[in-house]
């Protein structure tokens, strides 16, 4: 009897969760509605963490745990990403062999524009991330591309994020069915389980933010890209968005895609769009 009540309760609870999760997905299949998506996405996190202000979410796990918050405040006195930031600033201002600079490839000379990336390029029909745009800039100027997961790319994006701190994410989905499709594919990737451990991005970052895996506190998906790139103590170094995506896939014992694969670009597009309005906080520091 007792067990039966438990099972019934579990079924009712499960039904409710299914309604909450599955129903919007089913409706979304009929018509992609990013505006409604982003609203529901934010509401989910605001309801889950009623004490947090929207802008707190860009600080990841530090907003979820009092002890961590204290550690972070102390750490920010001498931020561990400072070295990378200096390196990025220097790289950014140093001309290529042809005399041009990174600034020549970007609107507003590349200053204070992080919040506009990724964007959907209607000529190409694809999502263009900041990391991709940086390497294209290099190649267009006769320089070899950098690795997407290493220090040089982290340094450049750290500097560009730093000059954009506080600016709200402003990702646009143009009136182009391919842009909507990219968004929808990114969303699908985000919620699809994969790897031997059978995790989706959402398993950890929507279902379980604030919870601990061993000693680590899981970050909320809302605002997670606002802090990129990040210095991670666990890595003893900087990590780009590409590095974060590929290592997440490895950690769930899946096969990572190639950095800047279309699917990663789409998922970054989705994830950035639903964080629209929240300020850029990168470069960030994480445990």
């Amino acid at each position: 009897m007792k067990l039966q009540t438990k099972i019934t309760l579990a079924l009712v609870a499960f039904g409710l969760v299914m309604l909450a999760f599955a129903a919007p997905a089913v409706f979304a299949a009929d018509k992609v509605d990013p505006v409604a998506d982003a609203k529901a996405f934010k509401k989910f996190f605001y309801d889950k963490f009623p004490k947090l202000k929207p802008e707190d979410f860009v600080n990841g796990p530090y907003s979820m745990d009092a002890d961590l918050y204290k550690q972070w405040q102390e750490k920010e006195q001498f931020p561990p990403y400072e070295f990378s930031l200096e390196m990025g600033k220097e790289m950014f201002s140093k001309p290529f062999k042809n005399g041009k600079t990174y600034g020549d490839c970007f609107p507003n000379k590349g200053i204070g524009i992080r919040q506009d990336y990724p964007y959907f390029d209607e000529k190409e029909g694809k999502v263009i991330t900041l990391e991709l745009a940086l390497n294209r800039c290099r190649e267009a100027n006769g320089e070899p591309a950098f690795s997407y997961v290493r220090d040089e790319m982290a340094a450049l994006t750290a500097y560009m994020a730093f000059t954009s701190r506080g600016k709200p994410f402003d990702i646009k989905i143009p009136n182009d069915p391919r842009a909507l499709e990219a968004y929808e594919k990114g969303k699908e990737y985000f919620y699809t389980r994969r790897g031997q451990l059978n995790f989706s991005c959402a398993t950890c970052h929507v279902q379980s933010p604030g919870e601990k895996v061993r000693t680590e506190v899981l970050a909320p998906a809302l605002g997670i890209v606002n802090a990129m790139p990040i210095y991670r103590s666990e890595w003893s170094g900087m990590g780009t968005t590409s590095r974060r995506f590929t290592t997440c896939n490895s950690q769930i014992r899946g096969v990572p895609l190639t950095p800047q694969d279309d699917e990663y670009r789409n998922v970054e597009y989705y994830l950035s769009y639903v964080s629209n309005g929240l300020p850029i906080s990168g470069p960030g520091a994480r445990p």
Partner: protein
Amino acid sequence: MTNISSRKTGLIPAMVLALSIVAAAGPALAQSAVAEGQKLAFDRSKGNCLTCHAIKGGEYPGTLGPELVDIKSKYPNRDELVAIVYDETKRNPLTVMPPFGRNRILTDKEISAVVDFLQTL
């Protein structure tokens, strides 16, 4: 007759001895399965239960899953416990718990050892 009875009397101690060996070996075997199960439960590359569940004797547990305590009273049916470890998504598609059996993270024998360990909690 005498022959038989003497054989009988000889048999009985032998059987007692044999039984006592089995009786002694039983808990010893179970003990080693429990120890093996605990090892698997704490091992990051294997069961790794500790990453999400608080478990007596384990340091730095995660909080994604419920604390693993009073397992025997919560799950008197061992098969149910095996089924949860094997593939909890069957009962609850939204569970965070990896399907240890279905995705071959653990072998059936390893799952059995983990369950032996869980039943001691």
